[in-house]
């Protein structure tokens, strides 16, 4: 027996899930479990009460609005996204999700879980910030919209607080997107990643794995020198570990930012 003792419920509705999350001490939402169950094994997290979201079918929808806005339910798995015709409206999403871990994890891991876990090495937090996504967070008091750049608050911390649920991620129309990462093995954990989007004037570039939250940069142009300058001016102080020194991550941040912007620029037209 690896996990600490825990209670479990499988509510049939979002309202019931919210009630349990807000009323029960130490309650935590269980989405795909591809992070949470592992951290529970390691006792890095020990919730007292798990609220399993698997029956909340309304959180599994993928919708493409007439204005091109793509809405992803929080319980959409990476594999759901990969097989969705609607999700191809923003191709970078499928391209990035296809490189997360392996088939088994992609079949079960969810987009909502990826952003709510907010592990600094996750793929989707920087991507969602670059794409200008909006997160719909609900609590017993109602619903609010949080821009992605305000959603990620710290390591493993997001604006979806205790008693709240992320229900939906809304992504505006666009196609000038790029993503680049250096990973530990093919499709492994990111050492540094960078996402970029150029759908207005200057690009939005977001670096992951270098700070507690994704770092949003707005270079003056998509030119390589401008992007490198923006990364340098951010005075990143990335963590060091046995995979990479702080200096190496800083160097990767520049290189990957340029690559992501180049890809975005090529696709813009």
């Amino acid at each position, binding site marked *: *027996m690896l996990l600490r003792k825990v209670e479990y419920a499988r509510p049939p509705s979002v309202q019931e899930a919210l009630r349990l999350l807000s009323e029960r001490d130490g309650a935590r939402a269980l989405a795909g479990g*591809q992070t949470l169950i592992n951290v529970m094994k390691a006792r890095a997290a020990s919730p007292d009460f*798990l609220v399993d979201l698997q029956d909340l079918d309304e959180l599994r929808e993928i919708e493409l609005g007439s204005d091109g806005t793509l809405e992803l339910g929080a319980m959409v798995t990476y594999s759901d996204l990969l097989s969705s015709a609607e999700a191809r409206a923003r191709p970078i999403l499928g391209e990035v999700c296809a490189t997360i871990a392996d*088939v088994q994890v992609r079949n079960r891991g969810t987009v909502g879980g990826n952003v709510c876990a907010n592990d600094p090495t996750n793929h989707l937090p920087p991507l969602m910030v670059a794409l200008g996504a909006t997160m719909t967070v609900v609590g017993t008091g109602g619903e609010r919209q949080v821009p992605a750049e305000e959603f990620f608050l710290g390591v493993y911390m997001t604006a979806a607080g205790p008693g709240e649920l992320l229900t939906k991620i809304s992504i505006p129309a666009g196609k000038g997107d790029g993503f680049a990462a250096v990973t530990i093995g093919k499709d492994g954990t990111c050492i540094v990643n960078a996402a970029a989007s150029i759908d207005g004037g200057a690009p939005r570039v977001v670096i992951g794995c270098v700070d507690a939250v994704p770092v949003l940069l707005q270079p003056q142009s998509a030119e390589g020198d401008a992007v490198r300058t923006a990364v340098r001016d951010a005075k990143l102080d990335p963590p060091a570990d046995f995979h990479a020194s702080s200096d190496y991550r800083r160097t990767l941040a520049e290189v990957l930012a340029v690559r992501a912007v180049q890809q975005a620029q090529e696709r813009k037209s």
Partner: protein
Amino acid sequence: MTISVEVDGTRYEREVDARRLLVHFLRDDLNLTGTHIGCDTGNCGACSIIYNGTLIKSCMVLAVQADGARIETVEGLAEEGELTDIQQAFSAHHALQCGYCTPGMLMSATALLRGNKSPSEEEIRRAIQGNICRCTGYVNIVEAIKSVSA
């Protein structure tokens, strides 16, 4: 909590603790030890099963979550003692040495071939990316899967 699951065509009802992992439930409660535990951290894929039609790792699901689920394990592949094509191909191509990863490899290969009758080598390699083998170097596993592709 009482759960009811269908495993390889047989329905089981059992009392489980919420903290019990599905792989432990299969092996220790149902005595279906064909599904292996290699790492218990979600990396190795030896515990792979087909769960409501999709391939997953059973060490990253709680048994209580599986209430109502339909599960296929390596033990259900062969019918009446007759190995499936992919099982025979693993034997013919020497796609196992110690055999520890084989239950998971077979489930990944089975899931792949259900959705894609003629995968490319790249698709085969990506399909078994979540399954670690420390003996074969994967070459014979890929050959075995290729040999049963249409």
